[in-house]
């Protein structure tokens, strides 16, 4: 049904472009069988195939891009929005009903979280995220929930067998200062050797007793 709306089948890659610093790593020259999907004013830095503006476009124009409507009307790409904007030349309503029907959930906390499920529905081999950095520096509760929401949809893509690639700069699928295998640790036995994942035993002891006792052996304060 989505192909009727101009979506292509059999893409190798969908590159999803956010506004984080790692957007700079997105190649300017598009690989074959690849589409670039950008949000908001990303069209200014990369030639996008589809643009997603999930906020009210007048608000986006006011806040981020004074000539937004004029600029995007000079381009040929479709512009996905939640509302119906006759002022846009190539405006397409985001297929909310189909997305909710497909996944059985309505969970969209930012533009990327609208783009990801739609990308999953195109069944590309890879989804690659550039500029979707979700910086740890942005430590508001709002941003924290957004990171989790994007991770939900990445999990969805993985569940569908789509490979998801993330830039090194992104905090997605990461935790600060620790590895991502809870209860495990990486050890490198010798310099130059590949690190090995092993259980992180308490006190470095893999043997355990049935009981332990606690004894005071000094009285310092």
């Amino acid at each position, binding site marked *: 049904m989505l192909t009727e709306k101009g979506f292509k089948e059999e893409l190798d890659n969908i590159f999803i472009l956010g506004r984080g610093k790692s957007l700079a790593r997105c190649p300017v020259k598009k690989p074959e069988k690849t589409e670039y999907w950008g949000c908001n004013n990303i069209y200014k830095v990369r030639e996008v195939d589809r643009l997603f503006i999930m906020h009210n476009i007048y608000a986006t124009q006011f806040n981020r891009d004074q000539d937004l409507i004029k600029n995007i009307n000079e381009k040929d790409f479709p512009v996905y929005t939640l509302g119906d904007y006759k002022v846009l030349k190539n405006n397409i309503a985001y297929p909310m009903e189909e997305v909710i029907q497909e996944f059985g959930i309505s969970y969209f906390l930012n533009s990327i979280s609208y783009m990801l499920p739609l990308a999953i529905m195109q069944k590309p081999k890879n989804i690659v995220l550039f500029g979707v950095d979700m910086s740890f520096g942005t430590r508001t509760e709002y941003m924290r929930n957004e990171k989790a929401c994007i991770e939900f949809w990445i999990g969805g893509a993985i569940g569908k067998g789509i490979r998801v690639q993330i830039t090194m700069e992104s905090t997605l699928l990461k*935790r600060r200062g620790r590895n991502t295998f809870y209860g495990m640790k990486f050890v490198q036995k010798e310099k130059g050797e590949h690190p090995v994942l092993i259980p992180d035993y308490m006190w470095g002891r893999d043997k355990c007793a049935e009981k332990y006792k606690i004894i005071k052996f000094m009285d310092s304060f």
Partner: protein
Amino acid sequence: MSKSIEFVKGLDKIIILAQGYSWYQCPEKAPEGAEIWGSNVIYRDYPNVDRLFFAHDIRHNILHDDVDLVENINKLEVPVYTAGVCKILKKNAQIPILELINEFKTGFFLNVIAYMLATAIMQKPKALELYGVDMRPDAGGEAYTNEKGSVEFWCGAAICRGIPIKNTKESYVMKTKQEGSFPGFKKKVPQKGLYNQIPKEERNPFVLQNYIILPVGTEI
């Protein structure tokens, strides 16, 4: 009858029971064709678990939650899955981390629930139900905040593999606010770990340096 250490494929439901405030809403017993997988020391509040999972060393829980943890778990005779090998437990196997990586080609396990969800997905149940997986923001901490994303990541994987997920109204998973208000709330069993044996005012990292922890009997 106690379960075999082998996982069962194609169950009607796997119920994942963790220790968040909504734990008590878990059905009293697993319905037929379903299993209840518990995390950490939830067996103290809810002994009817079919399988138990610990991702960190069980000695953390001996120190904080249950000084008789090994004895109590061995009495339950349920399979216990741990990150490492734990020979002191009667029915122990390692969480199949390598199998999980191989299956999903990713490793995003920030807490025990993440391991449980991924392992559950691999058993292809018809549905998943979560209790006590609340991921509340007031649990605090940067690490904890990221854990919500890890749990949601695996929920996404489950949903996209056609496994529906039911969760409590009070959980923050795949939400930004609490919807329920804990009707019929039940308090959890108080902590009774090794640290509870020392005076409360001495339970801080500085004074704890005056104490030594020793094994009773042989370590195996």
